[in-house]
């Protein structure tokens, strides 16, 4: 399947770093400072001098430009800088892919992918900025929560996905967070009765169906496969990466063609699997972006990881979704909902930990670790990470 021009195995994540997840509005420092702390941590993790970073990538309109981060670190040279367009966390995996593309074709050697927010610097709901024109805003549609509520309502009512599928996803997040001391929900298990009786945010979404932004930053360092093997013992190789918005998907004031899809359209999904030469059923663990529970379920359906319609309820059970022995463990650090929410960057770190074997909810022998960014956002993306073993024999 490897072809010239393919990303397959050309790049790897070698360093991960994060600040603590704090309640929004409570960070003791600016978003830039938090970002710098996360970048330094990621470089330390990789055993890399931060001054040798030469590429900077972010998404979701991060307010700290790569040149600001790079110059603050006194890097020798900035050779690559990219901002992925599109609101929300749809660009999170696309940012990793952009970094991989840069190192794969020699445009840069050590690229950092980062995202940092504080409520003081970025306000609330910075994921949606610029995506609520008067046609939405004037009619009372003010937030991604409401857009995802409209789409989730149809997912439930017309497609027949049962509510229990949403609940299972949220409860798996919370269950995983109980083993993660860094998670905001650590020590606060979710009682099913509390989930079911929580206040409505926008029907059919209740409080625990929704992620809530934290003040925090996180970063990962991507480098070439050759350099990765020099730096670390267990690089997380990028096997395949896609981003996309199919015809009629984006900026359509709720006229998206496949309305209950998460946006991972069939051609994109095929490119993802073909790029790595694997099938959906072979994936060991998934970090699926849950801005809200409904879109995350829709993403798993789009990818062929979960059956559509009423059958989704049979597959989406807490048991199936929980490490170590579930059929498809998801969000093993707690995810956006229970670990912390900085527009999905935390999911990247956890996808890497699973390949390294260092997750607090490790899936035994995980070789294929999937990252899904920003379901139902104007642009969505995915990255499939693999261990050294997955590259063997190619």
């Amino acid at each position: 399947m490897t072809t010239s021009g393919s990303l397959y195995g050309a790049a790897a994540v070698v360093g991960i770093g994060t600040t603590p997840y704090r309640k929004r509005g409570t960070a003791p420092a600016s978003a830039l400072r938090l970002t710098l702390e996360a970048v330094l941590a990621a470089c330390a993790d990789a055993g890399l001098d931060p001054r040798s970073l030469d590429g900077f990538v972010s998404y979701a309109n991060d307010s700290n430009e790569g040149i600001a981060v790079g110059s603050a670190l006194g890097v020798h040279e900035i050779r690559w800088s990219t901002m992925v367009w599109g609101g929300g966390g749809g660009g999170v995996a696309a940012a990793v892919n952009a970094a991989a593309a840069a190192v794969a074709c020699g445009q840069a050697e050590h690229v950092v992918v980062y995202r940092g927010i504080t409520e003081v610097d970025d306000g609330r709901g910075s994921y949606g900025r610029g995506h609520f024109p008067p046609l939405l805003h004037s009619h009372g549609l003010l937030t991604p929560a409401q857009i995802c509520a409209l789409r989730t309502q149809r997912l439930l009512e017309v497609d027949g996905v049962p509510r229990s599928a949403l609940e299972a996803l949220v409860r798996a997040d919370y269950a995983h967070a109980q083993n993660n001391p860094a998670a905001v929900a650590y020590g606060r298990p979710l009682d099913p009765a509390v989930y079911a009786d929580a206040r409505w945010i926008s029907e059919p979404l209740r409080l625990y169906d929704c992620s809530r932004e934290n003040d925090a930053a996180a970063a990962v360092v991507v480098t070439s496969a050759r350099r990765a093997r020099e730096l670390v013992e267990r690089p997380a190789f990028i096997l395949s990466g896609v981003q996309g918005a199919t015809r009629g998907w984006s900026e359509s004031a709720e006229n998206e063609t496949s309305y209950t899809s998460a946006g991972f359209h069939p051609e994109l999904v095929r490119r993802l699997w073909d790029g790595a030469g694997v099938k959906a059923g072979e994936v060991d663990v998934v970090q699926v972006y849950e801005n809200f529970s409904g879109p995350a379920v829709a993403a798993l359906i789009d990818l062929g990881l979960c059956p559509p319609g009423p059958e989704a309820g049979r597959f989406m059970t807490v048991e199936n979704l929980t490490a170590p022995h579930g059929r498809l463990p998801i969000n093993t650090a707690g995810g956006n909902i229970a670990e912390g929410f900085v527009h999905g960057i935390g999911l990247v770190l956890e996808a890497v930990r699973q390949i390294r074997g260092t997750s607090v909810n490790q899936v035994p022998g995980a070789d294929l670790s999937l990252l899904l960014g920003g379901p139902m956002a104007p642009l969505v993306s995915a990255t499939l990470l693999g261990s050294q073993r997955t590259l063997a024999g190619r």
Partner: protein
Amino acid sequence: MGADIAPGVPADLPPVVERHGQVVAAGDQRATLADFRPDRIGQLVASAALPDRMSGSEVLSIAPGDGGLMTAHIRYSGVDGERIVLRSRWIRLPQGWRVSDVRNVPDTPPVLAPVELGGPDEPYWAAAREGELRIQRCGGCGEWIWAPRPICPACHGFDLEWPVVAPEGRIFSWTRTWQPFAPEVRGHLPYVVVLVELPAAGGRRVLGVLRDADGADLRIGLPVRGEFDPPASPAAVPLLRWRIS
């Protein structure tokens, strides 16, 4: 004049509701918050709108409602003569009766100032001021285009028309919003946004706030008919309101 207490209302509730009205009208915030369900104080506080300065309260009615909750209507009087009615629904918790949700009655739509007009949707708003629903269509190939764009995505023509379209269709999806996402929605929560599929515009879908949505049993596929509410203020835009037909 006494409150209208329906059969089935537990005897210990009316004094609690009576006192709640009094502490709210007196502006006693601590006592008011103590009456709210502890897991949703912030949402409840920012949901209802009251007169700035109040002279009194009157419990109008208490009756059993949906889901085992008790429904109370309380009228608050402002010092300037304004009268506002809030409907609160009460739940019995181990620590006593608490407000589980609250809203202003009757239900009215939120009025949000437009963030920026002058984009490709400008003709929509101009027509709305005349009470007409107009949807963009390509003059070259006939493609219905929504959201409006500066070009036809099908044929790349720039000859774009805005025909009048019958405001009739079916609910494609809906959401009832309870969270006070902006200060302007206070006093209008919860409200229902419907996405309506328009057969007269090639199945394109438009948004709007549903009329008489309070307590409505909503279903995707219900037929609806729309009309424009005139702008609530000079800075506001006309609102497309839908009604189940």
